[in-house]
C-alpha cells in the first residue's frame, strides 16, 4: 500500500508538468495583456512597455516557461502580476476556505445522497422511490447559481435563518454547501440506488439469506458495504468537480475561494496566479483521486494493487 501511494504520487509529476504547460500555452493564446490591464485606462504606450519589462513579459516565451518551471520546482510560485504578492500566499488564504466548502458540500452530498439512495433502493418502485428520484433529478438539472440565489432569498432575506454571504461560521456554510452539494447528492442518490440494486442480485446476498439473516441485516451489513464501492468513486469525482465548479457558488455567496481566485486571475491575465491556482487545484484533485483509490481499495479488497 505504501509503495502504491508513493508510486501514485510520483506519477502525478508528469501530469502536473503537463497541466502547467497547458496553462501556459493557453494563456499565451488568450488575447489581452496583463501590462495593459495593469496600467489602467489612458496609459501611454511607454508606460505599458515599462510595466511589461518590469514583469519580465518581454522575454521570449520559452524562457519565461522554463524560468517558471525551474522556480516552481524550487517551491517558488512567483508573484502575482496584479498585486505583487507571492502567489502561494494568496492561494493559501483561499485554500482552507475552498477545502472547507468542498468538505461541507461533500458531507451534504454523501449524507443526503446515500440516505435517499438507500431508501429508494429498498423500496424500489414505491412512491417514495419515485419521489426521491424525481427530486434527485431536479437537483441535477437546476443551474447552481439560480438555486443559490433562491436559497438566499428564501432563507436569508425572508426567513433570516442564515446569513447571505461570507464564510467562517457554521451558519455561513449551510447555504453554499447545500447549493453545491445538491447536485452531487442527486448523483450519489442515483448511484447508491443502482449500486444497491445491483448488489442485491449478487450471489453472496443469497448466501446471507440462506444463513437465515434478517432482511435489514442483509441489506445494511452485507449489501451496503459492497454497494459503497462505486459510490466512493462517484463521490471522489464529485469532489474533484467541486474544486473547479465552485466558481459560481463562490460568486453567489461571496466566498473567497480558489475558484474565484483563478477566474479573476484569468480575467486579469495574471499568469503566475493562474498557474499556481490551477496547479494547486490539480494537486488537490490528484490527491483526492488517490484518497478515493485508497478508500476504494479498503472497501474492495479484490482490486490488486497494480
Amino acid at each position, binding site marked *: 500500500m505504501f509503495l502504491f501511494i508513493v508510486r501514485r504520487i510520483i506519477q502525478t509529476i508528469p501530469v502536473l508538468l503537463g497541466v502547467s504547460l497547458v496553462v501556459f500555452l493557453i494563456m499565451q493564446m488568450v488575447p489581452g495583456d496583463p501590462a495593459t490591464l495593469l496600467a489602467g485606462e489612458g496609459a*501611454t504606450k511607454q508606460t505599458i512597455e515599462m510595466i511589461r519589462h518590469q514583469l519580465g513579459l518581454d522575454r521570449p516565451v520559452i524562457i519565461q516557461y522554463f524560468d517558471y518551471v525551474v522556480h516552481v520546482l524550487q517551491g517558488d510560485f512567483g508573484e502575482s502580476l496584479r498585486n505583487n504578492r507571492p502567489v502561494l500566499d494568496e492561494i493559501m*488564504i483561499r485554500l482552507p476556505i475552498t477545502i472547507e466548502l468542498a468538505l461541507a458540500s461533500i458531507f451534504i452530498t454523501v449524507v443526503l445522497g446515500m440516505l435517499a439512495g438507500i431508501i429508494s433502493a429498498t423500496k424500489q418502485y414505491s412512491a417514495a422511490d419515485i419521489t426521491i428520484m424525481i427530486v434527485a433529478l431536479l437537483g441535477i438539472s437546476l443551474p447552481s447559481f439560480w438555486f443559490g440565489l433562491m436559497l438566499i432569498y428564501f432563507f436569508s432575506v425572508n426567513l433570516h435563518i442564515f*446569513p447571505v*454571504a461570507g464564510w467562517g461560521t457554521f451558519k455561513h456554510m449551510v447555504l453554499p454547501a447545500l447549493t453545491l452539494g445538491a447536485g452531487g447528492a442527486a448523483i450519489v442518490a442515483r448511484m447508491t440506488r443502482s449500486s444497491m440494486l445491483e448488489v442485491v442480485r449478487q450471489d453472496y446476498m443469497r448466501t446471507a439469506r440462506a444463513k437465515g439473516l434478517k432482511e435489514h441485516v442483509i441489506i445494511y451489513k452485507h449489501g451496503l458495504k459492497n454497494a459503497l464501492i462505486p459510490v466512493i468513486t462517484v463521490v471522489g469525482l464529485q469532489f474533484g468537480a467541486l474544486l473547479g465548479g465552485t466558481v459560481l457558488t463562490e*460568486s453567489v455567496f461571496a466566498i473567497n475561494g480558489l475558484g474565484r481566485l483563478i477566474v479573476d486571475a484569468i480575467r486579469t491575465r495574471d499568469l503566475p496566479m493562474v498557474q499556481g491556482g490551477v496547479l494547486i487545484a490539480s494537486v488537490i484533485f490528484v490527491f483526492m483521486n488517490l484518497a478515493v483509490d485508497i478508500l476504494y481499495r479498503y472497501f474492495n479488497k479484490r482490486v490488486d494493487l497494480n
Partner: protein
Amino acid sequence: GCTSDQTSSSATGTKAKAGGTLVVARLSDATTLDPHFITDIPSANVVYEKVYETLVEPDKNMEPKPLLATEWKQIDNVTWEFKLRKGVKFQDGSPFNADAVKTNFDRVLDPKTASPQAGKFEMIKEVKVVDDSTVQFILKYPYAPLLSILMSNEGDIISPKSIKENSDKIGRNPVGTGPYVFKSWKSGEEIKIEKNKDYWGNKPKIDGVVFKVVPEDATRLAMIETGEAHVTDQVPVTEIDRIEASDTMDLYRTDGLAVEYLSFNTKKKPFNDVRVRQAIAHAIEVDSIIKGVYNDVGTKANSTMSPKVFGYDPNIKGYNYDINESKKLLKEAGIKDGLSFTLTTSDRKERINMAEVIQSQLKGIGINVKIQVLEYGAYIDAIAKGQHQVSIGGWGNATGDGDYNQFNLFDSKSQGAAGNSSFYSNPEVDKLIESARQEADSEKRKELYAQAQEIENKDVPYVPIRNYEHLAVTGSSVKGLWLNPASYLMLDDVTVK
C-alpha cells in the same frame, strides 16, 4: 472600457460620536493600496481621502478646496506655490511638511519606481522645498489643469517614512495623514480601516469601515436588505424601482463625470467616411436607450464630456434621431445595398443590452449589426490594437478637467490604449487641445474646448450616448453618505445606527 479613475473630494472629519462600523459591499477587491500604483477605483476608494489625503480636494462640483495645502498661487506660467497645513502628522508619527511632499513626487516621477501614474505628472520638472511648509512645483511647460491632478487619487501624500523604509510594501501598508488608519486586508475578502484617533481635522463619526468583496449583484442587495452590509456602490439599474419601494434600502444617486459612447474606428472602411458616421449617429435613438436600458439612470449626452467636467460646452447640439437624414447620408456615402458591421463591447451587462438595442435600431435603416462581446481583457486588447470596427466604450474622468477627456479621447498621440479608440486624428483639434493645456485663463480654456468639441461633433468619431449617474444603495440605518462625481464614497458625515 468602463469609466475611469480618480477625482477628488475630501473627507474633512466631523464631530459626533455615533460609532459603529460601516460595511461596504462591492464587486471587486483592491489590487494595491499604493496610490502611485493604483489604477482602479476599487483600490482608490479604500484609501482616497480616507487613509491618504491630497494637497487640495474637490468639492461636490469638482472645484478645488484646501486640504493639506491651505493656500496656493501661480507664480508664473510654470511655477506653482503651495502653503502647507501645519501641525499635521502622518499616522506613523512622522511630520507632514514640504520634504514629505517632495519625497512623494520624487518617488512617482523616478523611473525606477516605474509608476503607471508617472505619465500624469510628466509636466512636473521638480518640486522645490521653499521652507518647511512651502513647496513649489516647477513645470516643464505651462499646464493649466495641474490642480485637478493634484486633487485626484494619484496626488495622495504618502508617509515619507514608509517611502524611505519600505517603499515596495506600501501597497499593503498604506500610511497617510487621513481620518482613517489602515487596519487589515484579507486578500479577496475584505479590507478594514479604522478611525484615526489622532486625526488633525474632524474625526469620523464611525469607528471604521469594512470593504467586503461580493461579486454577485443580487447578493449585495440581499446583504443590504438583511443588514449584513450597509452600502453598495455598484447597483444594477434594473433594481432601482424595487430599491426605492423598499423600506430597508435607500437609493443614492449623483451625476458622474463619465460618458458612454459608440466609437467608430475611423481607420477602417466605411467608418473613415464621416457621412457614414453621421448617418449612424442619426439612426440611434438615444432616449429609448436611456430609458429602456438604463432605466433613466443618467442623462442623454451631447458631448463626450459630461456636464460636470471643466470645459463642457452645453451648446453642442449632437445628432437628433432622424432616419431619413441617416438614409440620405448613407446614400451619399455610396452605400446602397446595406451595411454590415461588428459592434464590439465588453461583457458588462448594460453595455451588452445597449448593443442589442442599437442593433435593433440600426436594423431599421438596413444596417446589419453583429454583436461581439469580449471579456474585459480581450476587449481592451482589441481596442488598443484597433481590431474593432465599432465599439461601445466609456470615458471617465479622474480629474474633472477637460484635458483628461480631450487629450485622451481625441489627441492623435493617444490613439489606441491611451484612450483614443476611434483612432481619430485631426491636426486642428490636436492644436486646440495643446493650447488649452497651456492656457492659464479658465475662460479662454473653456472657449478652446468649445471649439474643439464643435469640430468633434461634426466629425463624430464618437457618438455620445449617456452621461453617467452613480448609484449607491444604503441600508436605512446609514445616514450622511455621499458619492463624489468620480464615484468615490465620501464618509465624512456617515453615521450607522
